[in-house]
């Protein structure tokens, strides 16, 4: 099938894998930022195709996973308010907070609904004028424009019972935090594909310049990822780190200017609380004052109990790339997709869920 099969072609993949193996002489460590990349890498067995010299680590690019427990607790507390409908993207409802989850709140009687689009949340508000409809805004630069659009739509249609709890996060600032911390040494980054559709390639330029770390923006099909790894290995072997786009069919260097303008109109940049990383200045999106009537943080006041992190859970380390899922003692023993301890085991973009679901056969004895 066009646009799918050609990116999953066996012969081309083997050709690329051969090229990477020939090119790679030194041992290097790459981080795939996106959870979507982690899943594709494991689903197609890409780790088995690339040479042993190339180590792959998962990064913080899973919107559900990086949501801080305190923010999750806040969303759950909002769900328990009277006459409130919580709307959210899929996986979020299953993530355990300190004491409960949105799924649990739903079972206890809270009105929690999964939506596929932010505009659906606006429509729910329109259809339920006596209820307050709060959209839990998670995600990176990819989802931010659509959340901005929902606020503009609500304003335009004079829907006064629609609110956004903005937990949106920005990718380049958190990459900087990871690189500054020096916790793990990275040689290259498989940069996010869909985030880059919005922000383009320029925001990553500080990475090769200031940290000498290679950056290649990748798509999510197996051949996209192999091509990206090939380019990263090439840059690293040559000692010429730079930002390259290996996903040119959708990513332009300047990004989607219109979408980003829309985002900047509605949101301003502020601090954000990242699971496993903490508060990172200038790494989140807050609703601007002129749209504060839609800001759930301003409209509702809840005071959940102090957050509590699950004992033994290493999601924070996994998110920073400091630990592999299999290094967590809870993995598959206590923490499973059916009874997850941390978010990385819940989300369809979480690293632990990917390792659990697609674990390569050489690890069979661990399962």
């Amino acid at each position, binding site marked *: 099938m066009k646009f799918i099969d050609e990116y999953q072609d066996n012969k081309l993949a083997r050709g690329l894998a051969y090229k990477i193996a020939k090119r790679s002489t030194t041992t290097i460590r790459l981080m795939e930022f996106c959870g*979507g990349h982690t899943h594709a890498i494991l689903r*197609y067995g890409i780790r088995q195709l690339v040479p042993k010299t190339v180590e792959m680590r998962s990064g913080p690019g899973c919107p559900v996973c990086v949501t801080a427990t305190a923010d999750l607790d806040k969303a759950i507390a909002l769900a328990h308010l009277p006459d409130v409908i919580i709307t959210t993207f*899929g*996986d979020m409802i299953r993530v355990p907070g300190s004491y409960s989850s949105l799924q649990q709140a739903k079972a206890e009687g809270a009105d929690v609904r999964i939506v596929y689009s932010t505009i659906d949340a606006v429509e729910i508000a329109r259809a339920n004028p006596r209820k307050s409809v709060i959209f839990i805004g998670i*995600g990176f630069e990819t989802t931010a424009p659509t959340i901005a659009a929902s606020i503009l739509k609500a304003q335009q249609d004079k829907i006064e019972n629609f609110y956004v709890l903005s937990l949106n996060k920005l990718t380049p600032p958190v990459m900087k935090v990871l690189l500054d911390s020096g916790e793990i040494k990275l040689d290259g980054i498989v940069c996010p594909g869909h985030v880059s559709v919005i922000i383009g390639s320029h925001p990553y330029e500080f990475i090769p310049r200031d940290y000498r770390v290679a950056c290649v923006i990748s798509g999510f099909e197996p051949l996209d990822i192999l091509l990206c790894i090939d380019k990263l290995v090439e840059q690293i072997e040559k000692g010429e780190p730079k930002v390259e786009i290996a996903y040119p069919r959708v990513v332009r260097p300047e990004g989607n200017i219109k979408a980003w303008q829309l985002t900047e109109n509605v949101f301003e940049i502020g601090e954000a609380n990242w699971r496993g990383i903490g508060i990172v200045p200038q790494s989140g999106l807050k609703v601007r004052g002129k749209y504060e009537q839609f800001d759930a943080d301003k409209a509702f006041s809840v005071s959940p109990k102090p957050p509590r992190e699950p004992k033994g859970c290493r999601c924070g380390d996994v998110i920073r790339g400091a630990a592999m899922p299999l290094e967590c003692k809870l993995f598959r023993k206590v923490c499973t*997709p059916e009874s997850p301890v941390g978010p990385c085991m819940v989300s369809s973009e979480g690293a632990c869920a990917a390792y659990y679901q697609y674990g390569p056969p050489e690890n069979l004895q661990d399962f």
Partner: protein
Amino acid sequence: MEQVDDRILLAHGSGGKLSHELVEKKFLPFLANPALNKLDDSAIFEASGRLAFTTDGYVVNPIFFPGGDIGKLSVCGTVNDLAMNGARPLYLSLSAIIEEGFLLSELEQIVQSIKKAAEEAEVNIIAGDTKVVNRGQADKLFITTSGVGIISPGVDISGANARAGDKVLLSGTIGDHGIAVMSQREGLRFSMTLESDCAPLNKLVAQMLEVSSRIHCLRDPTRGGLATTLSELARQSKVGIVVDEAKIPVKDEVKATCELLGLDPLYVANEGKVVAVADSADADKILARMRKNSYGRDAAIIGEVTNEHPGKVVMKTKLGPSRIVDMLSGELLPRIC
């Protein structure tokens, strides 16, 4: 009065006059057979030999979807559960829980498709019940069907019977039902030509059993999809299963929708597919027979059973390397980014 007639009222469930009318006007004319027509408290039938008995509840949303509706599903699902043990389905019972306010015209449409599906599967519905609940206490219509089937002597089919060396056969493309239903859900609605594969498989199974006495397992990969079914068989039989991703047929529409939503077709539901595990010596013969039936037109041998990694399913991916295929956990949810 037309406006009173056109919706289900609580009184339709009172057990009184309206209840009788509902059964006599909306169910009996379509499902009539000697056992049902008696309207006794239970249906009486003759049977001798080994019997199979099963029950299943149907709560699909939306109740009408491309390629079927809850009525067709409730017949095919139970017929297929019987067929998966090698039984020839004989009789079904059907119980409908209807939400107050449900349109009578829609009910009629659903009963008609129950009739059609039962005719195709050659089963009679010989016992039934209707209940009406307050608005909000059910979502439009829930149906439960139970079924009895008869197993021919010598047929021994169970999820625990797979043996090393057996071949794994699949009757056609995966994910059609799940994606067709999802395409109609609130908030997703996209137009496409894909239809649910919902179908009675008892005749296909009977034909397979005619050509081979060495079919060891049969299972329909419904909720949880092919991945979950294969995992179940591996665990139940305490064997390993190896499948080849490239051999598993997937329609373009399903592939594209799954890509878009971040789903894996291996986990998407089917309602008209069968997975068979059979002795390798008979596999080609069975495959050829399956392909002659329209419900098995795209059948393929997708893998084999091994003594290695008991309880686990390993898939050779399109790119060549292998990975584990685990059961579905939780609901299928689209990705965010």
